[in-house]
């Protein structure tokens, strides 16, 4: 399954309302719950937090890619959150994160999970695109940007 297959308005939230790292992780997982993509918020959140404790998934240029393997999902799940104001996420460059790609998958879908993360990594290399995403006004605009429309 390609990353593009996971993208729809329901898994995008603009703006994120959280102001700190623990809250934004919960808010991202809540996106999945609100979109009926998951049942067990705590199950998913715990595994995401466990991964985050090892090392922050905040990268550079305002991008964060929290991710985890969890038995709380039966297929690949993506949530995309945008915080125009920026949130302190212990990013590698010390700057606040504005674009959050949360990706979780069951342990037996490692291939598609890795492939989707690799696509996010490639997206993150395009600074112009990330800037456009961070300035998006609504979820539909984000979806259109991702589809290249």
């Amino acid at each position, binding site marked *: 399954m390609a990353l593009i*297959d996971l993208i729809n308005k329901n898994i995008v939230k603009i703006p994120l309302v959280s102001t700190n790292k623990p809250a934004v992780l919960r808010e991202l997982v809540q996106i999945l719950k609100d979109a009926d993509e998951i049942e067990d918020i705590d199950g998913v959140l715990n595994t995401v937090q466990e991964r985050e404790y090892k090392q922050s998934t905040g990268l550079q240029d305002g991008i964060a890619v929290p991710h985890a393997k969890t038995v709380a999902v039966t297929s690949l799940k993506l949530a995309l959150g945008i915080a125009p104001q920026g949130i302190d996420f212990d990013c590698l460059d010390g700057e606040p994160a504005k674009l959050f790609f949360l990706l979780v998958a069951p342990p*037996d879908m490692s291939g598609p999970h890795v*492939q989707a*993360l690799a696509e*996010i990594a490639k997206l993150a290399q*395009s600074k112009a695109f990330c800037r456009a995403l961070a300035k998006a006004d609504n979820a539909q605009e984000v979806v259109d940007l991702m589809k290249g429309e």
Partner: protein
Amino acid sequence: MSNLIKKIMVYVDGTEQSVTAAQYAICLACSTDAEMFAHYVINTKAVEDLLKAKIFLQDEQVDYEHDMEADAERYLNYIDDLARQKGLPIAKKRSKGTIHQEIVNAVKEENIDLLVLGELSRIRSRRDEFYDEAERALRTAPCSVLIVKDEDRVWNIYDSLV
């Protein structure tokens, strides 16, 4: 007609689409007396890219590659079982690297006549970052390629195969 297709290879990645493709390939191999191969690629290229991008930690690289090895075993055995149920022996293959390159390499090594793939993503993005490895394999494979669709129909065909 029976010599038209001698060797069929199905690319397996654990998705439902690839399982459907395998079922169809089994039916096709049975009806054409073709040899059948099932191939799983452990996407070590993507894992290396994730490590370089600092999305993965070192122990995640080890962990995910181990998981992909286990997935390869599990899904190839599952396809093997599907084939055995129809009395068809298959050759299971796995390799590591970049998916579309490994598929093409395997096609060349085994002299495959027909590559069978699961249904591709229905959404087409214009962004270069969203590349579908299976679609790349479709475009670069040196043999004919069959994309299998209509899961329900394929299941019925497979189910009715004696």
